[in-house]
């Protein structure tokens, strides 16, 4: 619809004022949440509310100004939604810090998260400033693919790779720890988009038809089999169920969009089922996760207490009910890692079902705006990249929230923008920058100066005034 609108001469408005208005509301969520934590837990508005609120506002407004300057036609909803989620996440992490401190621990996750958010916004701004046209990234198809594989292999290197909670997905360099998989995620989207936009015809056209479904040719199965093996490799060597699922699902979605052939979904689905069955049969950690999902009560308080975390999260969310206990009145700190993978449990307990639904809707909005950008994007690479980024987001949210609420087996992944964790936060801010860039390109009016894209040096010289 939007595309046909464009064709008929419809021009998107910039809507930067709307974005600013929504940002004010988003800031009210973040700063209000911080104040509510202070009131709920300590009985008073935190003393540093002005400094904290000012800092948060400065970050968000800075991001807004940069968008206004270098991506004026970008989607106006994405940045406010992200600001609201990030602000809410900071407030909840601060709440958990206070709970951990009450137990005698010394934690300043919220402060660290604020530093990571600052870095995330800096990278967000840098991405928008340096990358004036997303199509430039197409040049780095194979480079980013190789870098992504390299990053994924980093944790396996002795010396810098470390195993945390059974998964070998972290690297430690000096005082810094990092999850390279989060960055690899972005690079893989770029690599897939670049590869598929070139080879989509070959992958799409050849094949034979079996009962209404076009199945691809055997020789075209190479890339999907390769990705399948990479995913299995992550599962086997890094014991990271979530990332494995995420990468394969991402590739499948992009392959389907590029080729427009549901047959690929069938092939991918079969491969996924096979991989899952194989994982269940061969690997203890996969089997344990699955058994815990089916019978959490058998592992609560006995059999090693393996389901303590998910069951406590369920107790917490049930305890929260419709409107939640309110900040300071629940015990979200009972759930191990409540500040990272299980942050949605903490939100469900203290802010209730209402807030959980609100958060899911916010994620839904991000995915919807990203897919909308994909629809109206004018180039295949942009479409594929926006779809890929939307898909990675949707899958990650589904896998982690579904895991915590026991819809699907639990696989460790961070909740984008909410969870404590630097790599994830920074990577997600870059994803939003890329989405804004794509949507800016897509919504920008078609240049009326013919030859705007022409690289002829003569024309470039004559073009003295460039209309934004």
């Amino acid at each position, binding site marked *: 619809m939007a595309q046909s609108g464009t064709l008929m001469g419809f021009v998107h408005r910039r809507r930067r004022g709307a974005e600013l208005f929504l940002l004010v509301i988003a800031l009210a969520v973040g700063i209000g949440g911080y104040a509510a934590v202070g009131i709920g837990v300590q009985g008073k508005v935190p003393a540093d509310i002005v400094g904290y609120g000012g800092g948060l506002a400065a970050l968000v407004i800075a991001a807004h100004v940069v968008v206004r300057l270098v991506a004026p036609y970008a989607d106006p909803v994405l940045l406010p939604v992200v600001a609201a989620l990030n602000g809410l996440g900071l407030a909840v992490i601060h709440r958990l810090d206070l709970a951990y401190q009450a137990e005698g621990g010394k934690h300043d996750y919220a402060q660290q998260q604020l530093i990571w958010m600052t870095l995330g916004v800096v990278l967000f701004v840098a991405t928008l400033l340096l990358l004036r046209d997303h199509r430039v990234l197409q040049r780095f198809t194979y480079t980013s693919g190789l870098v992504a594989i390299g990053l994924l292999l980093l944790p396996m290197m002795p010396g810098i790779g470390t195993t945390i909670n059974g998964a070998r997905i972290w690297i430690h360099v000096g005082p810094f720890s990092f999850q390279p998989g989060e960055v690899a995620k972005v690079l893989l989207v770029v690599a897939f988009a670049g590869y598929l936009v070139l080879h989509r015809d070959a992958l799409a056209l050849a094949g034979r038809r079996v009962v209404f479904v076009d199945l691809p040719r055997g020789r075209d199965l190479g890339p999907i089999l390769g990705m399948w093996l990479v995913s299995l490799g992550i599962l086997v060597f890094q014991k990271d169920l979530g990332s494995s699922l995420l990468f394969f699902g991402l590739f499948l979605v992009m392959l389907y969009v590029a080729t*427009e052939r549901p047959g690929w979904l069938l092939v991918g689905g079969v491969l996924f089922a096979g991989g899952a069955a194989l994982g269940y049969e061969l690997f203890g950690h996969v089997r344990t996760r699955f058994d815990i999902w089916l019978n959490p009560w058998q592992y609560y308080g006995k059999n090693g207490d393996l389901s303590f975390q998910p069951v406590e999260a369920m107790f917490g969310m*049930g305890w929260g009910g419709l409107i939640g206990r309110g900040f300071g009145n629940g015990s979200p700190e009972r759930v191990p890692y409540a500040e990272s993978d299980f942050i949605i449990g903490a939100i469900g307990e203290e802010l209730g*079902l209402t807030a959980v639904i609100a958060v899911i809707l916010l994620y*839904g909005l991000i995915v919807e705006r990203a897919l909308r950008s994909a629809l109206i994007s004018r180039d295949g690479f942009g479409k594929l990249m926006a779809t890929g980024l939307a898909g990675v987001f949707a899958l990650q949210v*589904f896998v982690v929230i579904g895991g915590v609420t026991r819809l699907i087996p639990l696989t460790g992944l961070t909740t984008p923008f909410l969870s404590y964790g630097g790599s994830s936060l920074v990577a997600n801010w870059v994803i939003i920058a890329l989405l804004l860039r794509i949507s800016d390109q897509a919504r920008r009016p078609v240049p009326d100066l013919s030859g705007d894209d022409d690289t002829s040096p003569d024309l470039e010289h004559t073009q003295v005034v460039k209309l934004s």
Partner: protein
Amino acid sequence: MNKPIRTISIFCLLLFLALMVNATYLQYYKASSLDKDPRNRRVIVAAYSRERGAILVGRNPVAESVPSKDQYKFQRTYPAPLEYAPITGFFSYYSQTGIEQTENAVLSGDDPGLFVTKLVDLLSNNPTKGGSVQLTINAKAQDAAYQGLKALGPGVQGSVVALEPRTGKILAMVSLPTYDPNRLASHDLASVQAAYDRLNADPSEPLLNRAIQTTLPPGSTFKLVTAAAAIQSGNYTAADQVPGGPTYQLPLTSGPSGQISNEGRDCGTNRIPFTQAMGNSCNTSFAALANEVGAEALAKQAEAFGFNSHYLDDLRPQAVSQFPTQMDAAQTGQAGIGQYDVRSTPLQMAMVAAGIANAGTVMQPYVVDEVQSPNYDVINKVEPKELSQAVSATTASELTKLMVYTVDHGTADPAAIPGISVAGKTGTAQSGITSVPPYAWFVSFAPAEDPKVAVAVMIQKANIPRDEIAGGVYGGPIAKAVMEAVIQ
């Protein structure tokens, strides 16, 4: 590429819908069953942190919640811990007993009767407060019972129960040894666990409420039930002669092992007055009477007083007092003097006395008098309930005559109160084990013409030389003190 993107959009929509439906299922539909799970510590902590209602005796709390400065906000305290522990029970992080357990819904504020106050609290954003429980206990009687039993010296194991015969109200309930529930209500959970483990391992069983949870042979106090059955049969009145004599050979036996004697008390020969048999607690007379009325009638009479049944709802668990139903003639003779397999709680023997005092009608015993809202408005006042008509009013009055004679001229004279007619009966039951001393019993009620209080005293073990143990000497003064506390 737009068609697959639209398909993907629908797919993402379904994913998010599934998440929302599942979150709603978890936090709305399943929330209450999750909250009810006994392993859910959040609910326990919340109950533990709430301002719990008080347990009141008269106007004074015997258990109340006072603000504390730690994470649980309120500390449960017991102002008279040792004296009232058997009734209040304790409220710890891990469990509850006594009234704290049975009235937990009221005390915690979750009782449906407190719905309106809870709603008001919710709307005005105040934390839920619990309602209060008013006990039937008479503080003076409780003090008298506790001090009296304690005066027998350290290491005493025993119990005193006092009832209001007309209503079944429990006026006093004491059990020794006792414990300090404050230590179990502490917020220092490690010390709570240690204290509980220590109490639980103590061989003198301080956590046991001996008034309702220990059954022992009632000995001669059971002769009241035998006498009731005999009079109820129509063959006797208090003025009649009953079988007597220095020994009684149990049916189906021969030789000294089957012979019942009177341990030196004067029980005449052949026939003696009923008053003398009761006053001197003649084993020979009551063993003979038991066989005259027969095992079945005796069992029926015992059950009419409450043996072999549950009747106490306010405190749990209640041990059922037992009267055997399948007995031969020899066993019936022994059961008639409260031996063989007859076992009774102190509460049960108090009910026997109270039933006789209340013209034969046994009232259901209860300890919770009123349930009050957090603002002390009465929400529910308990009405006395009749448990059974154990004997006719005539039989009850004949029995009263026998019991008054026993206090005035017989073994129960330590309970006599000048100017007031007291009815009573002693008992000294053989434990049946050589190393375990006999149990001393005493039951009584007063004033005989208009009974206000019925008492049962049981001394399971005390630092008294074995041959000095007798229900009258040690139980009598305690019963007297309790009766005086109620009447005056």
